[in-house]
């Protein structure tokens, strides 16, 4: 498989190195010549010291025959341009973009980037899972990001405690489908009464989050 990596920072460097070690054909584009020279010394003659945002250099790098283009620069705008050119000018079957600002995720998806990787979102998710806050946790994004799996930890003061799950006014576009009680997952039934300490698992659109929070968590207490 031929992978074109654009961006020679830490992510791009290690990505290219791993791909080469795995036996894939890989070329790395880095516009900073000094940085490109350093990487070339490390991993060999697979580095092109040019700006991957320019079509002619993408062509020189072999975008016309790339199976995957991974845009992993530290600049979201650059990554978007690289993926769009790869997709629309060079018919690259799969584009992957690093998205630094989570607010840009939806835009990237909307503009046709096949896969987005958000280190910020990943770290944020990890932090949320480790901190016992009265917040909803985002466990995963589904499909193109239009749905997400959410966990709500019912703490004292939650309006959902003592109520039958089916009586909750769950917003449309959202569904509760399970509860983790004492570490054991169980499906939500019509007679399931929610209790303190329960972790309710929901799936829904991101815009349902505010109403879901009011139903399961109550008003935000930390602010």
């Amino acid at each position, binding site marked *: 498989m*031929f992978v074109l990596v654009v961006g020679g920072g830490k992510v791009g460097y290690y990505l290219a190195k791993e791909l080469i070690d795995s036996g894939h*054909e890989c*070329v790395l584009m880095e516009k900073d010549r000094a940085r490109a020279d350093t990487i070339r010394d490390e991993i*060999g*003659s*697979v580095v*092109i010291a040019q700006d991957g945002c320019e079509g002619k250099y993408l*062509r*020189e*790098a*072999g975008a*016309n*025959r790339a199976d995957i283009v991974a845009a992993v620069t530290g600049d979201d705008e650059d990554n978007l341009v690289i993926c769009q050119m790869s997709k629309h000018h060079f018919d690259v079957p799969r584009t992957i973009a690093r998205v630094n600002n989570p607010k840009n995720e939806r835009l990237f998806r909307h503009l046709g980037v096949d896969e987005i990787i958000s280190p910020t979102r990943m770290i944020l998710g990890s932090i949320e899972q480790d901190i016992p806050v009265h917040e909803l946790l985002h466990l995963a994004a589904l499909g193109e990001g239009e749905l997400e799996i959410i966990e709500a930890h019912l703490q004292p003061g939650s309006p959902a405690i003592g109520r039958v799950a089916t009586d909750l006014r769950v917003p449309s576009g959202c569904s509760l489908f399970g509860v983790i009680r004492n570490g054991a997952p169980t499906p939500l039934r019509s007679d399931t009464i929610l209790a303190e300490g329960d972790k309710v698992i929901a799936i829904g659109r991101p815009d349902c989050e505010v109403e879901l929070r009011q139903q399961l968590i109550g008003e935000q207490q930390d602010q």
Partner: protein
Amino acid sequence: MADSSAPQFRRAVVALSGGRTDRPIVALAAEVAKLSHAELVGVHVVEIDWTLPLDADVAGRSEDAQRVLDIAEATAEASRYRLETVLLQARDVGAAIVDEASERSADMIICGLPFRRRFGGDFAIGGTVPYILKNAPCAVWVVREAMPKEQA
């Protein structure tokens, strides 16, 4: 009897660029090789850009590449010495020369360096020779052609 002051080698890779330095370095290599009956391998590398897969049939179809090898063989014959020729295609000429030298356990790489100026200014050494000098595991001879008289 061999001249003990001459640097000797058992097997040398002669880097053939297809330029005007090929004839003099092949002739020089042949004269030195005679002293120790060393093996000479002339290597010409066709660089394949990234728009093509590395195994694209380029070098084999190139008449220019074949001509480079023919000229080198003829030059060696004129010196009454045998030169084995190899045609390679690679992403980078310097890396291919070094790899070939390593694979053949060559103890010498001989390459020519034309005298060129970058935009008429500083001497331009290019990228291949510095790469070979930096990465070759064996000894390297670089034969730079003379500076043109008007620039000397």
